[in-house]
């Protein structure tokens, strides 16, 4: 069993078999990062470029650590300190760096489709670390891994994604991945942040959080972006918190063995209260740890897959 593509651009179209392969591989790497010596020689001699066109803390550090622990050589690129400021295009930037002999590129970019665009520009394996509001596949994989680890299964669970659905790449990747694994998915957010014909994803859509989370196993809370409020998409942070905030009072609506997730960064007191974020059923820090293992698995599975292999 192998992955079909030599890139990881998104989870749309991925099969349950491929997802299972990634999640199973993640288990082994999850074990490695618990060891006193967390380094394996798997990617020795492979050079990975981390190309970050957007700010990121968790994802960038997580990828860098994953690469280092696999013994890859890594370079990290952020637009602030680069020739992008001098007007160099994405294509030229990556082709120039590839000319220094790069094997894999991890890319974060504000434009949907930028990772696909890179596959047309260079020969390296491309891993999407978030493109616009399109996909963020490794985040969804780590979410799924975290859920599977706790429940020992995915199929048949009920997962609710709450918050800014419209602008969230995490939501889209989660929908594709979870649905491929037979999870029942619900979305909840203010109607202005639910995009056009969202129900066509084959998900249940709610604007009432109490109805959305009733009987759910997992609530994955998306960050509310304050610039959306400035743009007038909802009236105030206060009203958002009242209508959609995940509070202790709402927890009894969930299934008994519930799980609280958040991809970070959190706005404490806005979309989630301290009690919920730091409560017993919160796996928010566990998600971060698992993220590293997932990224090690993805790097491992894609490394060495060349053009001919598709």
């Amino acid at each position, binding site marked *: 069993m192998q992955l079909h593509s030599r890139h990881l651009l998104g989870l*749309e179209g991925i099969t349950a078999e491929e997802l299972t392969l990634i999640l199973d591989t993640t288990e082994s790497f999850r074990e490695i990062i618990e060891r006193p010596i967390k380094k394996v020689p798997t990617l020795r001699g492979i050079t990975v470029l981390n190309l970050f066109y957007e700010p990121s803390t968790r994802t960038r550090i997580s990828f860098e650590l994953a690469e280092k622990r696999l013994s890859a050589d890594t370079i990290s690129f952020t637009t602030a300190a680069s020739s992008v400021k001098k007007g160099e*295009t*994405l*294509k030229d930037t990556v082709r120039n760096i590839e000319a220094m002999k790069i094997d894999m590129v991890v890319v974060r*970019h504000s*434009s*949907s*489709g*930028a990772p*696909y*665009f890179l596959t*047309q520009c260079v020969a390296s394996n491309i891993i999407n670390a978030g*493109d*616009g*509001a*399109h*996909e963020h596949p490794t985040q969804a994989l780590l979410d799924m891994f975290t859920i599977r680890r706790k429940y020992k299964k995915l199929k048949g669970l009920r997962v609710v994604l709450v918050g800014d659905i419209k*602008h969230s*790449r995490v939501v*889209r990747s989660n929908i594709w991945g979870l649905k491929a694994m037979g999870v029942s998915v619900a979305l909840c957010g203010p109607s202005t942040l639910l*995009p*056009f*014909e*969202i129900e*066509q*994803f084959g998900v249940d859509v709610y604007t009432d959080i109490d109805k959305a989370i009733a009987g759910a196993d997992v609530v994955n809370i998306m960050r509310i972006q304050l610039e959306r409020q400035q743009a007038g998409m909802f009236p105030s942070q206060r009203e958002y918190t009242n209508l959609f905030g995940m509070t202790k009072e709402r927890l009894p609506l969930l299934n008994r063995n519930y799980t609280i997730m958040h991809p970070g960064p959190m706005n404490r007191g806005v979309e989630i209260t301290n009690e919920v974020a730091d409560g017993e059923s919160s796996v928010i820090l566990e998600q971060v740890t698992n993220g590293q293992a997932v990224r090690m698995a993805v790097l491992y599975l894609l490394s060495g897959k060349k053009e001919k292999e598709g």
Partner: protein
Amino acid sequence: MKADKYDMVIKGGMVIDPALGFGNAADLFIKDKKIVKISKTGATSKKEFAFIPSENIIDVSGKLVVPGLIDMHVHLREPGREDEETIITGCEAAASGGFTSVCCMPNTSPTIDNQETVKFVLSRAEQADAHVYVIGAVTKSIKGEELSEIGDLVKAGAVAISDDGNFVQNPEIMRWALEYAKMFDIPIISHAEDQFLCSGGVMNESFQSTRLGMKGRPAVGEEIAVLRDIKLCEFTGGRLHIAHVSTAGAVKAIRQAKAEGINITAEACPHHFSLTDDEIGKEFNTNFRVNPPIRSRKDVDAVIEGLVDGTIDCIASDHAPHAEEEKDVEFDQAPPGMIGLETSLGLIKTFLIDKGYLSWSDAVGKMTYNPARILGLSGGHLGIDAPADITVIDPEKKWTVKKENFRSKSKNSPFIGWKLSGKVDYTILGGRVVYKTK
């Protein structure tokens, strides 16, 4: 009979003339850039042909002979972006697409909002392979703030005014423009997309934009703009032409307005009846980015219906050349627009005529007689004393769109690699062959 009685004869083709309703095999005799005689094929004696040099007798048996096609919506980029297109190269592209007349939009640099720039364009066009008609700007620098010197523009030769690329967002400015333009009996061509509803949008708002996480340009953004302009047109009694109609709601609004007798006309572009927005996610090909955006299936069907029932009068390409490096970027970073002069005819044949929606006569009317009537152009028909602007079409020729075959300086076409049916054999401008198929 003198040897120089005729300059050229186009012999044996099936003549389609939407204005005359002609429809038989005929010979067209050309003299001094005009059609001087039309006779049924076979009716002219061999003797008469004997006086015409054989290289000037073009035998087009089995082909269609139509008035030189008119594209009432193109961007020639000169002055300002001669790296993307010039008046000369744009007209070469027109000729190879079968067009003998093009109307160029004013969003150049400088803007065509003054007499000098109109004169510049017209002087450059004197050497070109097509007639160029100028559309002047409604407002200075197409900013939507102050009216251009419209009287001056018309005096210099402008045939219409438009802020194409931008919607005249302020309704009072649009009201004044419609009222003012009445004095010159010219239409205002509206790029109807509300700037607030469409701001930042890079594709149609639909499940596809939801799926791709891209900011949408909702259909309602176009429909509100069309409805507003219809009301202003009705109120002022001015002349309104809606450019590139792309949504079901816009077609419905125009149909209704026409039924009420409002003085409105409309055009549609080939990409709005041949493409749907699910193309974008396949390869994020920036050549699919255009304003208004390519829409959903139901909109495409409605545009076709509008073409069939006459709600939409014209087919125009919105030929919009862009430099390769500007399109070779992330999808949302690319400028909107695609070239169209050289694929228009093939798309019309393949998607409208072959599918049984339009007859050749209807289709040709939307590219000749109708735009000529709306803009008051001299061409657009065949007949005695009509200009010898003639297009000969091989209706069944199958061909593949190839990047290297474009005459346009820019190559930003989403149709590269497509197999189309119907192609130009000859384009004749004022009795001169400006394009001949290989």
